């Protein structure tokens, strides 16, 4: 049994009793990485020297002050689109191959303040654009449950590293499902908080109106601990919300008696694999057994979410990624004049999916097409958000699968953008509405994990965690670990 099969609470108890040291925890992390990284390939760069040094300092601190911080001594992995001072940050793009940030993201500062130790930076789809990690400019991360399968994306490294026990928790980012889908595929817990709950300062922007950072962990309680530490208003992010942060671990009682669950018929319909559907139905029976009630509802505009999302996210991306031009940072391909330098640097630096989305976004925003595509998609977004508002006015949470299938084969969908986009059909609407949602393990089909998605009202993460935790405690899926 690995130290990381234990929970934050247990590890803190061990630290408190001096049965382990922070040095031990960090050493355990790098030892596990050495053992399994050849099969999983979750990391892009390690922070080993600095992490071991930090651990020694924290052990001194432990002697004088005890366990000082909610995440004290805990080994963490960070998705490589979260900037880390002095530690290479590439967004898995060749264009940023040499980029060493000069500041930390707000979440990184908060993690360090809570005592977490950065173990390394995790692989992802380039600039967070993808659902399988196959769009990384560097390597292919593999699913720890079956290394012929994708880990999901875009936070594939974040999910795989936690599932493989390389770190105790990780941070990912979720624009259309990029935390929840890989969490489902890798059998871990992944939370996309309410838009504005967590500061995006220092998260390299993909689609600014949708992006949100969140934690990936083995259990719901651990997830709540991490969200406690990273949430809150930040004056450096004007879209972060000035809303009080409750203690997310407080409501984890296992009691969900009398709660009302909505199950959208669109989330169990066509396109959702039969195995997945069966497990979600079983989950509903489990929740019913705990005293909750559920009813079928409709989110009538669900089928339009993917189309609206690809127009909006790509439009925002085309503007956000204009800054990558090889001038102030990144890899420059020098030509005789400035325009050609831009073009060569961008064309050689970006991978195909990134170019595809920049092209789509530039087209949708270009003169003569703006009303037909971008404005139309923004209006459809309003309708989708209204669907959620209507249902969540009457129910405590919405429940469905996280992804329509289990993890697919590496290479299976890589040449067909539209099929790949359909993986996010059940997660995208949540980002468009800005509400929080979690994926928790809900069983296995042919050895591959299935994720249950629980969606709540704006800033109702506590309710989402409460239901997720009750479900987790009533099942044993989170106790399973992949054999590597």
């Amino acid at each position, binding site marked *: 049994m690995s130290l990381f099969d234990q929970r934050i609470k247990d590890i803190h108890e061990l630290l408190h009793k001096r049965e382990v040291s922070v040095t031990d925890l960090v050493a355990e992390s790098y030892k596990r990485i050495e053992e399994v990284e050849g099969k999983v390939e979750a990391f892009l760069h390690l922070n080993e020297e600095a992490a071991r040094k930090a651990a020694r300092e924290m052990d001194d601190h432990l002697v004088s002050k005890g366990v000082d911080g909610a995440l004290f001594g805990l080994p963490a992995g960070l998705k490589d689109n979260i900037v880390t001072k002095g530690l290479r940050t590439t967004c898995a793009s060749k264009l940023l191959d040499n980029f060493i940030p000069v500041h930390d993201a707000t979440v990184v500062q908060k993690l360090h303040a809570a005592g977490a130790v950065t173990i390394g930076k995790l692989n992802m789809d380039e600039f967070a654009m993808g659902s399988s990690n196959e769009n990384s400019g560097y390597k292919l991360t593999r699913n720890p449950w079956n290394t012929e399968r994708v880990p999901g994306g875009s936070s594939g490294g974040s999910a795989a590293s936690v599932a493989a026990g390389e770190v105790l928790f990780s941070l990912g980012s979720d624009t259309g499902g990029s935390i929840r889908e890989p969490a489902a595929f890798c059998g871990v817990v992944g939370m996309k908080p309410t838009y504005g709950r967590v500061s995006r300062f220092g998260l390299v922007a993909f689609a600014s109106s949708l992006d949100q950072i969140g934690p990936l962990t083995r259990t719901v309680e651990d997830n709540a601990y991490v969200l406690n530490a990273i949430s809150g208003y930040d004056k450096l992010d004007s879209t972060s919300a000035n809303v009080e942060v409750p203690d997310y671990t407080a409501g984890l009682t296992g009691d969900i008696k009398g709660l009302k669950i909505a199950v959208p018929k669109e989330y169990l319909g066509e396109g959702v694999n039969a195995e997945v559907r069966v497990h979600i139905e079983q989950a509903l029976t489990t929740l019913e057994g705990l005293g909750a009630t559920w009813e079928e509802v409709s989110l009538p505009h669900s089928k339009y979410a993917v189309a609206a999302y690809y127009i909006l996210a790509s439009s925002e991306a085309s503007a956000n990624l204009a800054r990558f031009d090889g001038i102030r940072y990144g890899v420059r391909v020098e030509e005789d004049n400035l325009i050609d330098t831009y073009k060569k640097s961008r064309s050689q630096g970006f991978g195909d999916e990134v170019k595809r989305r920049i*092209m789509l976004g530039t087209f949708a925003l270009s003169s003569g097409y703006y009303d037909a595509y971008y404005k139309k998609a923004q209006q459809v977004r309003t309708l989708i958000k209204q669907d959620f508002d209507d249902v969540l006015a009457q129910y405590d949470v919405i429940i469905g699968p996280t992804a329509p299938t289990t993890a697919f084969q590496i290479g299976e969908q890589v040449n067909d953008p539209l099929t790949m986009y359909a993986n996010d059909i059940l997660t995208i609407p949540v980002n*468009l509405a800005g509400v929080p949602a979690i994926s928790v393990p809900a069983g296995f089909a042919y050895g591959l994990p299935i994720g249950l998605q629980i969606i709540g009202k704006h800033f109702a993460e506590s309710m989402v965690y409460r239901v997720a935790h009750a479900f987790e405690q009533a099942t044993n899926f989170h106790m399973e670990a992949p054999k590597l």
Partner: protein
Amino acid sequence: MRITKNQVKHVANLARLEFSEKEMEVFAKQLDDIIGYAEQLNELDTTNVKPTSHVLDISNVLRADEVRQSLSNEAALKNAPDQADGQVKVPSVLE
């Protein structure tokens, strides 16, 4: 085809990207498929529907215009591919 090769060329120039003839064909086809898929949005009547610009009920976020510490010149240039005299150096802008 909704998207022609000429349109792809035009958009590529706006986006400061360049493609080979072969890539251009692939992109034209793929973009055409995606735009075709997006046209299902036209099934919805959105007359009088306000576009969503922000999902939360917040609008202008204001702060006092105060001088704060910012990056040093050295830090700001740390990642610049080329620099001279404390500034980022670029190829000629004018012919």
